[in-house]
């Protein structure tokens, strides 16, 4: 079976996978997609492959899914929150506070049905993952340990080679795409100088007293590593945290996560500093090899959620979308909408999208403008570091400019030596929105798709290259960005100025007037009214329109202004919707909405 020529999976660091000639003595079963590991990430990928009707198999060494959770964390308490009631019905929004569920179309497969605890028990996770696999009928081969992976060059193959997987029984599986979702549990066989001093998590003491005054190196960085680190943080001199994958795809990471303050000295022991996967989660060494789940965390090492269920469930979906395009010519899903829906589509997403929220800075929505900006395509949760390659990765065209909608925490402008955190400062004014500290939506406008160079050499602390224009939606503690004046109006003005058009909405009566008195119409009238879908105002709204007009130039000290605000000197206020320019607004209305 050519095993002799195959590099063992946990070979020397740096060598990703050895390329071997594979004698075709027998024809092993061939799969389009092989997923290693039936943990959360593996099951999540299996779900998407199943829904898309793809040929796939999941290999799991344990008899049931989620074996990691049968042993870890040792205190049996998950650190991922399970907020069952958010006060909102929106299922998408609620995933922002559900850190354990996998994505599926089946509302029964939400973790809140499995545990009432805010920090749930690990046993519930095991039960949940089992149900997920069973209910959805995912194709998992249990009790199958993949011992070796080799590459078999073949020009017919999707990626120029097949992945040859050999399990513990010597059974061989040939795969076009290999998706590694084995997690980062403590390696069974650590093999480096000094490894003999390592102690396994399963046996390590949970008593902090045993670590007083010591320098501790923690290998691995799952919840277990944090659990351990947190436990002994107060008593140790220094904690180093390091990790590598079980399959020894030798990279080291800068993971900081919740233990950000520890200042990790990463990876020097292994001589390899940079992760070997791209922002698309594909291995840099082997095309067609993707890293999913916890192990893929190097992509967003400085941020957070990519190493957790509530983060990687979205990155897995992104990987699946990339694969769908690459191998099945299915373009990245997008909604095509008229430009009049631009403001609304952004408002909708920033208010409910969970993927944007959990994977801020990593996955972002992209709006591709159509010619003349009359319409646009809305793409959800694209890996933004791959922005320059968007056209080839998604099959969509970005010729006429684009918006990127990203969620961000406040930025550091003052340099490393200064304290950026102003005392108790949260931003309340729209003009100061760019200084928002808490997670808030940021919209980037590019006239042209940035190049790879521009993405790589972007300004420090910028998640994206310098845009043509940028807009921050002012932070909101309830992440409710629907205030008409505070959030929606400034967003519209930004979009209008980017597109150099008028995105206001108008009643049919106004459109009627414009149609007969102007040669051009604003988009709202063009795309609505002229297509016989104008918005007819009711009597009470008409009254308000008359009133708002009267208030148009309202100035408290000038009666003259008030008079002149009747622009037409009109006895018939109904006939005066001419160019609803800026309408005055009672001063208190702003306050009320906020």
């Amino acid at each position, binding site marked *: 079976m050519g095993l002799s020529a195959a590099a063992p999976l946990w070979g020397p660091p740096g060598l990703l996978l050895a390329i071997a000639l594979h004698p075709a003595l027998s024809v092993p079963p061939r799969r389009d997609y092989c997923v290693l590991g039936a943990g959360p990430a593996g099951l999540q990928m299996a779900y998407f492959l199943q829904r898309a009707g793809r040929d796939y198999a999941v290999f799991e060494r344990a008899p049931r899914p989620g074996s990691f959770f049968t042993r870890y964390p040792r205190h049996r308490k998950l650190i991922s929150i399970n907020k069952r009631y958010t006060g909102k019905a929106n299922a998408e929004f609620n995933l922002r506070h559900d850190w354990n569920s996998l994505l599926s179309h089946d509302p029964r497969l939400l973790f809140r049905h499995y545990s009432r605890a805010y920090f749930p028990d690990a046993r519930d996770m095991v039960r949940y993952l089992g149900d997920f696999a069973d209910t959805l009928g995912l194709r998992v081969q249990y009790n199958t340990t993949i011992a070796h992976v080799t590459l078999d060059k073949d020009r017919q193959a999707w990626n120029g080679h097949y992945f040859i997987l050999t399990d513990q029984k010597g059974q061989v599986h040939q795969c076009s795409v290999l998706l590694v979702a084995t997690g980062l549990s403590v390696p069974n066989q650590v093999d480096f100088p000094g490894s003999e001093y390592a102690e396994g998590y399963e046996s390590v003491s949970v008593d902090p007293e045993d670590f007083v005054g010591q320098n501790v190196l923690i290998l691995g960085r799952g919840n277990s590593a944090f659990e351990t680190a947190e436990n002994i943080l107060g008593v140790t001199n220094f904690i180093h945290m390091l990790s590598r994958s079980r399959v020894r795809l030798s990279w080291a990471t800068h993971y900081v996560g919740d233990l950000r303050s520890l200042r990790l000295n990463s990876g020097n022991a292994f001589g390899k500093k940079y992760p070997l996967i791209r922002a698309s989660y594909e291995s840099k060494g082997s095309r067609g090899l993707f890293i999913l789940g916890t192990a893929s965390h190097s992509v967003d090492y400085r941020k957070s959620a990519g190493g957790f269920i509530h983060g990687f469930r979205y990155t897995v979906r992104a990987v699946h979308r990339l694969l769908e395009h690459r191998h099945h010519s299915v373009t990245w899903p997008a909604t095509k909408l008229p430009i009049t829906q631009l403001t609304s589509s952004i408002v909708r997403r920033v208010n409910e999208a969970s993927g944007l929220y959990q994977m801020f800075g990593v996955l972002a929505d992209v709006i591709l403008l159509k010619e003349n900006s009359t319409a646009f395509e809305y793409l959800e949760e694209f890996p933004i570091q791959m922005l320059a390659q968007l056209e080839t990765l998604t099959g969509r065209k970005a010729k006429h400019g684009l918006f990127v909608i990203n969620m961000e925490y406040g930025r550091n402008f003052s340099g490393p030596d200064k304290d950026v955190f102003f005392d108790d400062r949260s931003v309340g004014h729209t003009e100061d929105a760019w200084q928002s500290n808490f997670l808030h939506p940021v919209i980037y406008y590019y006239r042209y798709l940035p190049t790879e160079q521009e993405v790589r050499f972007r300004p420090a602390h910028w998640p994206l290259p310098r845009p043509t224009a940028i807009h921050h939606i002012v932070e909101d503690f309830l992440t409710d960005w629907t205030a008409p004046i505070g959030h929606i109006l400034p967003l519209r003005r930004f979009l209008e100025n980017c597109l150099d058009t008028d995105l206001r909405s108008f009643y049919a009566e106004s459109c009627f007037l414009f149609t007969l008195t102007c040669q051009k119409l604003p988009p709202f009238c063009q795309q609505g009214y002229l297509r016989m879908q104008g918005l007819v105002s009711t009597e009470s709204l008409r009254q308000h329109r008359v009133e708002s007009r009267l208030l148009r130039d309202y100035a408290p000290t000038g009666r003259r202004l008030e008079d002149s605000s009747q622009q037409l000197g009109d006895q018939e206020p109904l006939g005066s*919707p001419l160019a609803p320019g800026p309408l005055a607004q009672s001063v208190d209305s702003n306050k009320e909405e906020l």
Partner: protein
Amino acid sequence: MFSGFNVFRVGISFVIMCIFYMPTVNSLPELSPQKYFSTLQPGKASLAYFCQADSPRTSVFLEELNEAVRPLQDYGISVAKVNCVKEEISRYCGKEKDLMKAYLFKGNILLREFPTDTLFDVNAIVAHVLFALLFNEVKYITNLEDLQNIENALKGKANIIFSYVRAIGIPEHRAVMEAAFVYGTTYQFVLTTEIALLESIGSEDVEYAHLYFFHCKLVLDLTQQCRRTLMEQPLTTLNIHLFIKTMKASLLTEVAEDPQQVSTVHLQLGLPLVFIVSQQATYEADRRTAEWVAWRLLGKAGVLLLLRDSLEVNIPQDANVVFKRAEEGVPVEFLVLHDVDLIISHVENNMHIEEIQEDEDNDMEGPDIDVQDDEVAETVFRDRKRKLPLELTVELTEETFNATVMASDSIVLFYAGWQAVSMAFLQSYIDVAVKLKGTSTMLLTRINCADWSDVCTKQNVTEFPIVKMYKKGENPVSYAGMLGTEDLLKFIQLNRISYPVNIISIQEAEEYLSGELYKDLISYSSVSVLGLFSPTMKTAKEDFSEAGNYLKGYVITGIYSEEDVLLLSTKYAASLPALLLARHTEGKIESVPLASTHAQDIVQIITDALLEMFPEITVENLPSYFRLQKPLLILFSDGTVNPQYKKAILTLVKQKYLDSFTPCWLNLKNTPVGRGILRAYFDPLPPLPLLVLVNLHSGGQVFAFPSDQAIIEENLVLWLKKLEAGLENHITILPAQEWKPPLPAYDFLSMIDAATSHRGTRKVPKCMKETDVQENDKEQHEDKSAVRKEPIETLRIKHWNRSMKSRKCRKTRQRKW
């Protein structure tokens, strides 16, 4: 009294320039008491603030005082901060820190002392100081009697400027005092803060500051009251100045030159001129009229008497008024106005009010970008507190959605609670529910996609609002009509039955065509369509059925394909396959041959057939006529169209004169917005009815049928021929500007750049340098938090797209308002 001041009264405009455009760079000198008193010059006024040496170096009061240095200097008043040091105790130095006061000296005579809390801001400082200095020139009164005494004393001698301000020390008070500084020797200034006094002279809106000009100088009879002119602009220094200037100008001037060339002080002040055309024979009467008009327009326009007889240029024979706008290069207008009120209203409607901005902090550049300018968003916001009878519709959730739409025929409104357009339409939707209450088999439901996003996505709803109809055994249908009560109601009512209706007998077909069969539905569809097919025409029937189904909810369609179909086709002279169109309002039945039987073509034939030959154009139906891409020939009518005109136009239609146009009429009673359209076309507006040709699709020219001609066939034909030959001049061209952003956005990118450069990590952009210099200046004596805040304040650059070329379409109209 203060002779020194007269020097400064020269060239008020210069002073005003200084006040408003000079940056306040002068800072407050700090002197010791001895030094201070040595600087005092005889006859010169000086304001000094005495404070303990160990008092805080900054305070709100000092900041305001610092700001007042420059404006007070413009009035020849010096300002100083005097530090009371131990060595030289002055009696002006208070005993305690918090008892420090400001003192106003003239020469070295103390005029007044001010507790610092009366000088609460720069306006209060300037107002109080001038008030003290101009004690004789500004009389402060508290009752009507005082006012009457002053008035009586000045009759035949001088005019009075009387003003009311709510309090001493507020910006309006300062403005009055600044005006008094300039005009105090020419006019008697009278000031009050008594609201009762203002009311007793008959003012309205007493919550605002008021300024009146009392024309007392002209009054010779002491029993007569002085005429009063109210200044209508807000009380600011500049406005008062302009107001007084117009009061000073002569009331009525006689001219005998080309009005285009005439210029008076009014034009310079941005006010229009009104010429009353006079001739020898009626001179006396004209002059009286002109005087009357002049009084009415005092402060709003200049009035002149134009002597036609000695005029060298020609003006139209019938014109009796000439109107000249203040804007340069705009031709004068010749008007025929037979009523003084018409003249007044014409002027008032055409005044170009230029708001003069003089906010010193320059925070009010143009319209505020934080103010809502979306009419839908604004009206929905204003209406948010009104309770709608939402209970008339069923609110669906993820749990109830499928069960509900499966169980009964339903209409579902998909909306988003935060989206203004959705919420505006929700009102119409509820109105439909009110109208259908208890009568419809269709269940009216709604689902808020802000809550049930997944349900909406599953129903393929990606934009809002969307209305869908769910009927048992049928695919859901999206409503594609106007988002309004009437059209949606029509859609729901017409969908009570399925289309096309299968007609099974000749008798039923006749009932169908006469409207008898669906009596209760024909009010929603003025046309019933009947497809006639022989039983063998299978594909044609299928295509027609598809078309009928497609048009369900918009028009009634039926199909007849029994063996005896030939009876019908013969009766209506139609060769099969054919459509019969029954127009119920006109009681007419037409036949249309079905050459092509593609469903799409049939839909097109039917939609075209729904169009009328001479429709009343409305907000709702304009799009279907606009679609034809032909110039509109619109007859504007105040009420129902005159049958004579209608007949004339229909005759022309029949004679094919109007094939290249879309003739229609507009009832201003039903469509009041039509007045707005007429105003865009005509100025002044001739009497109705008006016949207009609007070339909407190419060029935008508007031609008017001469209003002095009768709307009869002959005249129309002649006019159309002249139009065709290019002999008619257009009255206006519709603006062709694109719709640009109504206002700029916040330029966060520049703010970020500036903040970065401020921290020294980026190169300073050139344009920023000036502000930075100031910044650095301030940093030296301001605490850190202020410094941190400062760049943000200066960086509220609201004009990233400074050109502001927006909305010329509207601008053009604005000129006409």
